[in-house]
């Protein structure tokens, strides 16, 4: 046990950043509700940072906070704000965050609300490599990275990645790719016998996997919000 009863330590957390051009409650409310309706539960009570890079006027932070509470989101702070807006945000009790190096500037030019789950980690996709078999009960998470597993994934094991998942043995457990919402990610495995597969929140249980590709090499991707399984050629 530490002798200190109090400790302050720096940590990095994944936060969703909301990029939008018009932050008035009236225009944000319908757009944000529609976005959340696509994946109910996925952003439930998620901490959100508001990117105010393109925002000229000082937004009504009190009303914004109420909107976020109503939508079951937690507004934790703002980023990219001008000095006046910064001061207003701080008055409203919000944190002012330094923009992460990865904060995409392009996204702001798109004239619509887009929640991008950019992490504060570097955007270059790393790979996490697991040399052995993942056993039942083990959980492996490749944060902001692809996950490559040389062995098998046992029944009751879970492999999760923000990127793609490659399994060179049998997949008997759960595989969750695009865990932070990236719909372009895929799962590749040499022998498909999974309990569950998921890409960006869309999932199939093993019942849906029985059939042509069961026990065979397969690739799973997301096409028009539907999972598609295909041969691994």
């Amino acid at each position, binding site marked *: 046990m530490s002798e200190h009863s109090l400790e302050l330590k720096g940590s990095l957390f994944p936060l969703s950043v909301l990029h939008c051009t018009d932050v008035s409650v009236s225009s944000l409310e319908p757009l944000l509700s529609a976005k959340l309706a696509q994946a109910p539960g996925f952003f439930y009570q998620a901490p959100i940072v508001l990117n105010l890079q393109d925002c000229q006027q000082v937004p009504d932070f009190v009303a914004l906070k109420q909107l976020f509470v109503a939508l079951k989101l937690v507004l934790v702070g703002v980023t990219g704000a001008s000095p006046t807006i910064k001061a207003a945000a701080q008055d409203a009790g919000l944190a002012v965050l330094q923009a992460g190096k990865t904060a995409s500037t392009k996204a702001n030019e798109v004239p619509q609300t887009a929640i991008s789950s950019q992490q504060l980690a570097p955007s270059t996709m790393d790979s996490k490599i697991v040399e052995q078999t993942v056993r039942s009960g083990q959980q492996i998470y490749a944060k902001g990275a692809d996950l490559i597993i040389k062995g098998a994934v046992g029944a*009751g094991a879970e492999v999760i990645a923000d990127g793609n998942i490659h399994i060179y043995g049998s997949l008997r457990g759960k595989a969750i790719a695009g865990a932070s919402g990236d719909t372009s990610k895929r799962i590749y495995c040499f022998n498909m016998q999974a309990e569950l597969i998921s890409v960006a929140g869309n999932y199939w249980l093993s019942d849906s996997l029985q059939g042509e590709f069961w026990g065979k090499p397969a690739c799973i991707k997301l096409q028009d919000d539907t999972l598609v399984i295909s041969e691994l050629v």
Partner: protein
Amino acid sequence: MAKIIVVTSGKGGVGKTTSSAAIGTGLALAGHKTVIVDFDIGLRNLDLIMGCERRVVYDFVNVINGEANLKQTLIKDKRVDNLFILPASQTRDKDALTKDGVERVLTELAKEFDFILCDSPAGIESGAMMALYFADEAVVVTNPEVSSVRDSDRILGMLSSKSRRAEQGLEGIKEHLLLTRYNPERVQKGEMLSVEDVKEILAIELIGVIPESQAVLNASNSGQPVIMDKDSDAGQAYLDTVQRLLGETVPFRFLTVEKKGFIKRIFGG
């Protein structure tokens, strides 16, 4: 240098204690000074299987607590030289084992013995963790059915992450698969997983296949390790297993259905 081998499985009732008794006896018969340590505190069984239940005076927990020394506590087997048993306590629970205490006892045993066989309790809680923590090798006892295989997979994960060797970044525990209660007839009928199925799922080296046998039950009831019943199939399979554990190459037996009947024997049908 003593070798510490844990006999473990995750699932209960698959034959850990039977296998510990048989393998320990086999190692001693081969001339190696061996002690079998019962880690199943509160559910002591090893003494019954070894037929020494009336000779238990002190136990493992007494030694850890310093209430008795090892010399007083170890029970020498009456049939086999070089074979000793360290019984578990029946009146305590698994929390009586501490990592420091277990390490102290194992270190002391290591000075005297060639092999220390740790008979693990079922489960993945502290008792089982204590039994596997200090191991150099592991015998993972598995029945050819899905729940046992999954539990073994879980224990294999523990061996590679929660053991001393894993924590200190040493060379990993050497893992061996021991398939027990194997019934080739039921495998043929598709009622049981085959050796190949289990090997494919667990992906570790096979050290033995023990056929389902009445001899095992008889042995338990009479308090004599089944390996001493040299005429039985199970006894012979354990003898093979011990030889493999000692590094010899022995072909696997009892994997196929025995041919039956006079006509078949004559004509080789």
